[in-house]
């Protein structure tokens, strides 16, 4: 991907987003939506202008960009999603421990024993800071 394609992708997404927001915003009463309406139109115009300018610009700076790493993406988003589901099932400590342990082992920076110790220690630390010291109510879980 070059910086040119990258900017074109950005312009396209921003334009699509602006149109979607505008359609929603124009569905609300004027008195409650003139602010987002104006901004959505402005955002759309800017995106269109930026896209056109990129398209018409001389294509000399075709420096290649580093490729996207899909597995890192899946790990972060999938990991958190699984974590939250686990949180609702087995409670905070269990889910946090599992999440930390499995992710550390998968990333392979440390052996499983060290990962085990780190995961237990950090779970305990978070528990103490948030639930004991700051008195945050624990999330409800189905099993515990």
């Amino acid at each position: 991907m070059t910086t040119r394609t990258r900017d074109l992708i950005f312009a396209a997404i921003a334009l699509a987003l602006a149109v979607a927001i505008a359609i929603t915003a124009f569905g609300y009463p004027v008195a409650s939506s003139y602010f987002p309406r104006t901004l959505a139109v402005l955002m759309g115009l800017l995106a269109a202008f930026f896209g056109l300018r990129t398209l018409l610009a001389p294509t000399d700076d075709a420096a290649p960009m580093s490729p996207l790493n899909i597995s890192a993406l899946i790990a972060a988003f999938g990991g958190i999603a699984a974590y939250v589901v686990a949180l609702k099932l087995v409670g905070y400590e269990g889910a946090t421990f599992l999440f930390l342990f499995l992710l550390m082992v998968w990333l392979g920076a440390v052996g499983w024993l060290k990962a085990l110790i780190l995961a237990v220690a950090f779970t305990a630390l978070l528990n103490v800071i948030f639930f004991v010291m700051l008195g945050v109510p624990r999330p409800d879980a189905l099993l515990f």
Partner: protein
Amino acid sequence: MKLFIKKLAAALGFVTLAGMTPAIAEYPEKPITLIVAYSPGGGTDTAARTVAKFVEKHLGQRLVVENKSGAGGQIGFSALARANTDGYEIGFINVPSIQLVKQLRENVPYEMSDFAPIANIQLDPVVVAVNADSPYQTLSELLDAAKADPGAVNIGADGPQSNNQLQLIVAEDALATKFNFIAFDGSGPAIKATLGGELAASLPSASSAGSHVDAGRLRVLGVFADERSPLFPDVPTVSEAAGVKVPSVGASLRGIAAPKGISDAHKARLEKAFADVMADPDFLAHAETAGLPLKYMDAAAFEAYLQEADAALGKYIDLMK
């Protein structure tokens, strides 16, 4: 899988039941959670934490405040409606906010019948306040100005869809007049705009106006209440000043409620603890210095108030939308 979860739930229910039966004699045997529908540090939270601290002595257990804030109280009130009925989860409810949320919104997942009132703690009436330099010396002068040019006099308050706005609408209806209502993000900013001269008057809660009145920056023209407020004994009620009965449904109440289904024994124990704290001289002295406007109602009186307010609200709700 579904069957498994059902079995599990049954098993868990059994465990709690089994754990509870022998405990009735000595309830409460562990700390009780008090759900508060607003974020830490706000007026409701401060009131809740103050009561929680003083009731401990009378309850024999700690009362742990749990803030479930969001959606103008809807999230916390819904959580209380669905809370455990084992007596270890109770909550603070704000009247009329809890009813306004229910009646102004769609798909609100609680009914007023989901709550079992235990005691009312606070009653904070709405007052009419003007800048100390304001030309309006009395409420009738302000009302005359509004009648001379309906909808032209700027009046600000917490809002939108707040108890303060409700009180304004009720007053406009009863006094057959119209103001230009401007919503602010709380009583504080509305008072600031009054001090800055942007508003002809504002409708803050009595407790938030108090310190500004003491400092001589604000003047209170009337209190929306059936009787004069101990905070401002020289100020007439709005009904007195206007000569027309103006219902005070906008007054903000804060009280304790349990989810419906709590056992009578537990409810009675809680009622007693809160009745005791409301007569505790230490607590009363503290509330006095902290400026908390206390008003005790027992469970029956609180329930009756809730039903009356619910019915009264029905008349005005369309005007608020």
